[in-house]
Structure formats: structure tokens, C-alpha cells
């Protein structure tokens, strides 16, 4: 079975404008789950980039998501079989919604695609990737 691995990240809930202008390190992957929610992997070293602007921001060490990279072609086939909404054309792109009936986040690059699901669904997701 394909192995999804837990992703070490920081999950942040903060004011949207603070997230808009957050100085997230270039090397990290920052995914905007919602207007007021940001997922950053690897975990933020310096939380003050958020807390300095929003003292009530919530930042947690987040290990509750699991992910897997697939080559673009393989990802496209899996998505064609299991995704009932249209994947954005641009690259890189972030998209989220039901894939194989599991809430899924996608980070789409030219050559590869990262699939992220809540870790409690990683087992079922892997099974569905195999089908």
C-alpha cells in the first residue's frame, strides 16, 4: 500500500490580513486552508512573525496530517478516477476538496503533486489509491 507520512507542520489561526503579509520562510510550504488558517511545513522556527501582529493567534505543532508525493502523471490519473471537481490549471497551485470521498488538500507542482489528508484517514486514502 502507498505509505502516507505524517507531516510536521505549524498550523496557525490568525487574522487574515496577518496571514496575507506573514513573512513565511521562502523554503517552507505554506498552504492557506482558510482565510484565517495557514499550514506551514516544516514547522515555523519563529512564531513571532505571526504573534507580533496578532497576539491572539493560535499556533500549534501540527502532526495531524499525512501526505504523499505522486509524479504528476500518476496524480492526474488518480484524480481523474476520484475527483469530481476540476483541478486548477496553473502551477504551482493549492486546492482542497473531496478526493475519493476523503477531505484532501493538494499542492500541485509541475512535476509532482502532494496529497495531504487528515492522518486518521490516511489508511483509507492509501487503500483507495491502490484500488
Amino acid at each position, binding site marked *: 500500500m502507498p505509505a502516507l507520512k505524517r507531516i510536521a507542520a505549524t498550523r496557525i489561526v490568525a487574522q487574515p490580513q496577518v496571514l496575507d503579509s506573514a513573512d513565511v520562510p521562502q523554503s517552507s510550504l505554506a498552504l492557506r486552508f482558510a*482565510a484565517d*488558517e495557514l499550514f506551514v511545513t516544516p514547522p515555523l522556527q519563529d512564531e513571532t512573525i505571526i504573534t507580533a501582529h496578532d497576539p491572539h493567534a493560535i499556533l500549534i505543532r501540527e502532526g495531524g496530517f499525512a501526505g504523499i508525493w505522486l509524479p504528476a502523471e500518476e496524480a492526474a490519473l488518480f484524480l481523474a478516477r476520484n475527483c469530481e*471537481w476540476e483541478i486548477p490549471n496553473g502551477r504551482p497551485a493549492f486546492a*482542497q*476538496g473531496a478526493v475519493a470521498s476523503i477531505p484532501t488538500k493538494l499542492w500541485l507542482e509541475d512535476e509532482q503533486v502532494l496529497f495531504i489528508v487528515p492522518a486518521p484517514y490516511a489508511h483509507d486514502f492509501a487503500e483507495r489509491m491502490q484500488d
Partner: protein
Amino acid sequence: MSIQIPCPHCGPRPIEEFAFGEILAVPDQITDPDERDIDRAFMHNNPEGPQREAWFHTYGCRRWVTLTRDTRTDQII
């Protein structure tokens, strides 16, 4: 796929990704506080036509989307 709900954060997604939430409204003509309470707790406008609704994007951003849907056609206005 089916009816599409336009999620402002995630884009249009099939209705099955969302949980339904009606936006309740007690008519002004009900003035007795107890009657207003009962109305808000149990009664529905249940219109055949446009209805204000909220949909929670369970499979995406996990936030509420509000919209107006015509219950005769399921079209989102």
C-alpha cells in the same frame, strides 16, 4: 457530481462536500417571547422559492458559506 456550491475560498464544489444549515428567521408578527422561542426552535419557512442558506464546507476549508438557493430548481442565485 451534482449541485455546485460556490465556496469563496475553495471554488465551486459538489454539494455533497457541504453540510446544510438553514438560516432561521422568526416572522416579525410573532411578538410573544415564548411563541418566538418556539418558532425559532421548531418552525420553518420552508419556502418554494429562494431561501437564504448556510453551507459548511466540511471537505474543504471548514468554514460557512452563505447563499440563496431556489428550492424549486436547486439553482443558486
